[in-house]
């Protein structure tokens, strides 16, 4: 009788451990959480989450967050549209977005670096590092196809200036 009636006093930690052994979810301690910082005050643009196994490769551009632009990082787009009294800034930006979408769709997973777009006089020069996983003949076709289609759509000479490399590890800066 006394055994049944006696109460076992245990600390909260011991109770939760016991419940874990018994596979019962412990009741939450009474508390009401509050946000000490507002929901969107943390900047998360251009930053990658660290993985447990530390095997996610990052290029130099991915490893440096955007506040390092013009400090440790360079730009991906070179044009004069955003200078003081520059012309057609929005058109240049839209064209850049279109070029990047087109390149990423045409060159399936082959661009290892960012697509660099340079505007000089009336020409657009597109550069980047490409991995050599297809035959050279197919690569020549892709270069010609890209140049031809972009020239027709953007109505100005477009030239591709690519560098190729054998392995994807060449552009990896660090693993997180």
């Amino acid at each position, binding site marked *: 009788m006394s055994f049944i009636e006696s109460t076992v006093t245990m600390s909260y930690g011991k109770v939760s451990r016991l419940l874990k052994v018994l596979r019962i979810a412990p009741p939450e301690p009474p508390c009401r959480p509050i946000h000490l910082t507002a929901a969107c005050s943390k900047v998360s643009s251009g930053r990658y989450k660290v993985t447990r196994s530390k095997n996610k490769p990052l290029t130099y551009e991915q490893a440096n967050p955007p506040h390092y632009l013009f400090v440790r990082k360079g730009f991906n787009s*070179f044009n*004069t549209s955003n*200078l003081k009294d*520059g012309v057609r800034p929005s058109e*240049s930006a839209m064209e850049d977005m279109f070029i990047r979408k087109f390149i990423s769709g045409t060159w399936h997973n082959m661009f290892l670096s960012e697509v660099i777009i340079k505007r*000089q*006089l009336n020409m657009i020069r597109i550069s980047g590092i490409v991995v050599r996983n297809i035959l050279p003949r197919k690569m020549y076709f892709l270069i010609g196809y890209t140049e031809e289609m972009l020239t027709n759509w953007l*109505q100005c000479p477009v030239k591709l200036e690519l560098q190729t490399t054998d392995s994807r590890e060449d552009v990896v800066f660090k693993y997180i």
Partner: protein
Amino acid sequence: MSRIRLIQLGSSCLSKANFQNICSSGFKAPAARGLQVPADPTRRQRPDLLYSRLELELRAHDPAVLDSYVTFLQQAARHLGVTTGKLWEPPRHYQRLSLLKSVHIFAKHKVQYEARTYFRVLELLRLTGSTADTYLEYTQRMLPEGIAMKVSRYARESLPEHLSQRPDQSESDGKS
């Protein structure tokens, strides 16, 4: 003495190309990056314009690139026998934007962008029209991406006839 001021915009983000015209021209197009068709030497030439000075105003986002291009301009002027005048740096201009970070509400949290424009002005003195055209064509073909050039040409004109002669004596008597 009055002065004619002709402003020619040679920015590297120009309007749509006319490379079709180069392809369809009768004689061989210039090997360098596409620009206008060179002048026909058999056409009768008008007498050369004389410029008292040429002002090249350069604008860029990157002051290092601007400095190296200015060095190139001065070297080119030395090689072509063009007298350089002043080189000065107008004050830089920062364009700052504060935009809301979030799509909806959270107006206390903003993100700030900045676009920096650096200036350099180089003066060239006492040029003929053909020298100016040659020099400008060479330097504009070599414009790096991201640098804009504005050319102001200053020429001297002789005083017009109605100002170079004294007014009639009878007119001045009638007024007084």
